[in-house]
């Protein structure tokens, strides 16, 4: 059998690195449906999973893909699917099922131009709000925004650990550029890898009636006669269609993410000390923003960069704490994460928007920085 952890230094596409990160994390089941620009992930999975004793299943559609992924997770397996906008839309109902049933799984969305069939071969970042609000009802989840093939490895790996630890679906919000660009990727040694597994049922805790935010997970075939349902349910797992149970359940499901923000939320800061203008960016756009900030500094402007690594849950406290005179939020969409920034910022916020289709150029971000600096 081939190795699960391909330790070494490689020149890999983001999609390929994503697959390696998943397999290194323990992924042994992938069910998916081809869709540009994510198909390379499915293709590499179909080659690599059988080599490591795993299973690739090509389903007949996206709702079925995510359903199969959830079923396999309850069969005690680490699981993943990948898609793009149209498929992500189709998966929303079962994403809600994953949230409600607290099923660990990883879903990769390689974003492309939308809405609808849109620009199948061109990039965008236009699914960011959908990542949080795409399924019906109130819920929280974890979503990462990798900006490089290396991060596709690292953050996909982390996504699996977070999914297991918090019993939640975790999204990897990639895009066409990040998934298809080819860059150096370092894959660590097996002994440096730390995998997290879902917590098993603990008789002592049950006996004490210990209240936990993240319940242990008994899977099918382990002798616990579990009941799992998408209906609002009580602590036994049985349907309980009433207001009190809804409050308790939704409170806990959201609480397990929101109250663990310190552990979940990640961002990268550059030159924030004393910065009068802060650019808040994520994903591929953050690469353009990095160059724009560097150029602006060279011109004497006090600009810093806050790069969101987790986009959900949103780092509200960090935004609130920024002591800048203005924030700039460049995105390859018509203004999505900027809305969250606006909600928490204590200074004016300027979006740099785009209809989608190409990487936001550093020049357009630099132009916005200079305009804001002049006004200030």
């Amino acid at each position, binding site marked *: 059998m081939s190795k699960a952890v391909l330790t070494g230094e490689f020149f890999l596409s983001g999609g390929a690195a994503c697959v390696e990160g998943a397999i290194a994390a323990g992924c042994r089941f992938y069910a998916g449906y081809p869709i540009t620009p994510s198909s390379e992930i499915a293709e590499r999975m179909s080659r690599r999973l059988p080599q490591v004793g795993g299973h690739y299943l090509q389903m007949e559609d996206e709702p079925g893909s995510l359903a199969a992924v959830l079923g396999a997770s309850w069969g005690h397996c680490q699981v993943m699917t990948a898609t793009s906008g149209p498929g992500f839309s189709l998966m929303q109902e079962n994403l809600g099922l994953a949230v409600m049933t607290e099923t660990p799984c990883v879903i990769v969305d390689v974003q492309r131009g939308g809405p609808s069939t849109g620009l199948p071969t061109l990039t965008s970042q236009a699914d960011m709000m959908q990542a949080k609000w795409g399924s019906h009802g109130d819920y929280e989840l974890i979503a990462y925004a990798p900006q490089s093939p290396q991060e596709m490895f690292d953050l996909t790996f982390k996504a699996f650990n977070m999914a297991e630890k918090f019993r939640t679906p975790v999204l990897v919000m990639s895009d066409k550029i990040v998934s298809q660009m080819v860059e150096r990727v370092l894959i660590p040694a097996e002994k440096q890898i730390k995998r997290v597994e879902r917590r098993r049922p603990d*008789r002592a805790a*049950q*006996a004490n009636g210990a209240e936990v935010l993240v319940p242990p997970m008994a899977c099918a075939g*382990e*002798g*616990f*006669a579990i009941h799992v349902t998408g209906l609002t349910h009580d602590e036994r797992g049985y349907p309980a269609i009433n207001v009190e149970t809804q409050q308790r359940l939704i409170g806990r499901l959201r609480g397990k993410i929101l109250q663990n923000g310190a552990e979940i939320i990640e961002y990268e800061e550059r030159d924030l000390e004393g910065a009068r203008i802060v650019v808040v960016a994520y994903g591929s756009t953050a690469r353009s923003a990095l160059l724009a900030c560097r150029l602006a500094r060279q011109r004497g402007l006090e600009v810093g960069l806050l790069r969101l690594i987790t986009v959900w849950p949103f780092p509200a406290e960090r935004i609130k704490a920024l002591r800048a005179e203005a924030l700039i939020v460049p995105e390859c969409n018509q203004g999505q994460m900027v809305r969250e920034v606006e909600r928490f910022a204590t200074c004016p916020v300027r979006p740099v928007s785009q209809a989608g289709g190409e990487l936001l150029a550093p020049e357009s971000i630099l132009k916005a920085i200079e305009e804001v600096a002049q006004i200030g």
Partner: protein
Amino acid sequence: MPGQVYLIPDRCKGCGFCWTFCPHDVLEESEEINAKGYHLPRVKRDKDNYCVDCKICAIVCPDFAIFTVERGLAPPSPAVSTILSQEVGASR
């Protein structure tokens, strides 16, 4: 073998399957209703000894509300026993 009819009135929904399909016409609808307002079955007058424990009432009942046991044998114990709990000692 002669049979004894057991009824769980709270589960009954008065659908009529048991008294319609009993091959020996042992049962009939009674005037009595349970808490939900459903008419319960009863053994017909003088038909006590006609039940042969064929269990058709039990298998046709949609609500697990009626069953028969061979006369003289004990009914199932109300204490719950699960095969699963023997294997893993799981509490329910």
